[in-house]
């Protein structure tokens, strides 16, 4: 626009300006394209190829076959694995989203009223978020320990309550794992919700106040509708994050007792690297990809039109 106007006025500069104006981006993108191609695209294509073979990690070239697909998808343990994955993901995502939102609301309100302790709370939650997954699993294993040095049972005993079999009772263990995951993941949701709350136009609240809205009405008719896109984006991010969680579970329960906490990613890992069944693991990998993609599309469908871009 302005550049082209300038160019027509100064024709002798045209060639030089045009040369700089439309540089090819591809030399700049080349390193990223190479790395992503070699380490993501090519392996993902190969996963699809492996899924139609009977390859193992023990060597050999394998043959092309369709039976791996049929074999894996009809395994008797698969429904149980998928159910465990669903409970773990839904529990973690709902817990992190709700607690993260509640914390952000309280922190914003407290900051407005100059209450003490908001920074301490935020920093503490974020420290939990920085703890590596493996270490998080080890820490929670100490807390859940049923020996006298278990950090939760000795607290319960102090308050005169009965100890809980956090990790050995198959009906309880899933909630223990969800609890530890909520501990580690909530800070992210809190930070996203906090930023989104800060971005709401204050004049909306002024208008609501003029109209005589109560605090609850402001929450339900101003705040939450305004937060909708941020909540959906956050849910996409934490859902995928949770589906891929692997290290925090392997060091906390290892998938046990029995198969009570063996989520899909852990199961895939075990199939490939403990049973050396590369082809079956590839089918499970495709299943993981399809589930994350499907969920992302479902959430995206709820986004307002102009946010889709």
């Amino acid at each position, binding site marked *: 626009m302005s550049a082209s106007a300038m160019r027509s006025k100064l024709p002798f500069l045209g060639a030089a300006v045009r040369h*700089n104006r439309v*540089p090819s*981006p591809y030399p*700049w*993108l080349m*390193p*990223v394209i190479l*790395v*992503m191609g070699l*380490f*993501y695209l*090519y*392996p993902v294509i190969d*996963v699809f190829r*492996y899924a139609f073979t009977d390859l193992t990690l023990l060597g050999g070239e394998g043959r092309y076959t369709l039976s791996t697909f049929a074999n894996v998808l009809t395994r008797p343990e698969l429904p149980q694995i998928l159910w465990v994955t669903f409970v773990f993901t839904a529990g973690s995502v709902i817990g992190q989203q709700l*607690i993260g939102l509640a*914390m952000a609301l309280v922190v914003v309100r407290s900051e407005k*009223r100059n*209450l003490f*302790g*908001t920074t301490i*709370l935020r*920093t503490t*939650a*974020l*420290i*939990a978020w*920085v*703890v*590596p997954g*493996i*270490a998080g699993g*080890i*820490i929670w294993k*100490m*807390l859940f320990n049923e020996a*006298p*040095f278990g*950090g939760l049972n000795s607290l319960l005993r102090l308050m005169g309550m009965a100890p809980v079999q956090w990790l050995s009772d198959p009906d309880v263990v899933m909630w223990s794992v969800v609890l530890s995951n909520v*501990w580690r993941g909530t800070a992210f949701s809190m*930070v*996203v919700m906090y*930023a*989104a709350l800060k*971005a709401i136009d204050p004049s909306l609240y002024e208008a609501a106040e003029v109209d005589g809205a109560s605090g609850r009405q402001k929450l339900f008719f101003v705040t939450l509708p305004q937060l909708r*896109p*941020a909540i959906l*984006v*956050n849910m996409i991010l934490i859902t995928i994050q949770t*589906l*891929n969680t*692997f*290290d925090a579970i392997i*060091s906390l329960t290892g998938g046990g007792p029995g198969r009570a906490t063996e989520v899909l*990613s852990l199961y895939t890992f075990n199939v490939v690297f403990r049973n050396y069944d*590369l082809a079956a693991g590839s089918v499970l*990998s495709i299943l993981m*990809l399809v589930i994350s*993609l499907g969920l992302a599309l479902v959430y995206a469908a709820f986004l307002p039109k102009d946010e889709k*871009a």
Partner: protein
Amino acid sequence: MKLSTRDRLGDILSYAFMAVMFVFFSWPLIWLLSMALRTRKEVFLGVSRLIPKFPTLDNFTMVLTSSQFPVYLLNALKLSCLSAVGCLIIAAPAAYAFSRFEFKSKGAWMLGILAFQMISPLVIMVPLYRYMARLGLIDSHFGTIMVYIALGVPMVTWLLKGYMDGIPKSLDEAALIDGCNRLSVFIRIILPLSTPGVASAFIITVIAGWSQFLVPFLLITKDSLVPIGVGIFQYAGTQNASTIQVLAAACLISVVPAIIAFLALQRLILSAMTAGAVKG
């Protein structure tokens, strides 16, 4: 300002909620610290010795003077720092191009790069393990670093692009008119001005590298090459109830560097993080 009873009630509820959340988030870490400072006898006294009567640093000394742990820590430092540098070298030019150039299907390229982040590292590790084994890159820090870089590149590209968007384009234009070419504009003007963005991207990538488990667990088998994430996992597997205080100390030592790195640059990291998430 007058305080209505309603506001005061709200304050009390806010305090109560914040206190409960604070206990929830801090208790595991307080417990870890408490265990790490105890002697073997006090470990079995549970919560009544939250503040140990005979605190000791022996557990830390034991971990830090052992033959393996210092090696694990150094390996983790090497892997995470080198991969963060590699990430920046690869992502920065792309971030500049995304921030400054207009080209066909730019949005699609950017979304494509982001979409890779949806893929679980486990999925790509299935074939990568096979390639690495064939190339003889098992037990090589080089191979592991390359995978770390690939895992970090999408986010670093987006972070840096977001930061560079905040630098006025008129600076580029002025330099171009003065006869700089694009490359020297990028290296001499945009990169120095992006230092805060580069620093936060670096720290985020270092923390992510420090937390890596799956990739080194699969690609590194030699004990002398293993980083702390894998080292502590294997160490935990060999411990029993009588050495839980040593495990706690080891765990604390593995966590603290990441926490310090984060706290040092908390403000930068948070603004980088939320800029991405809120813009969508």
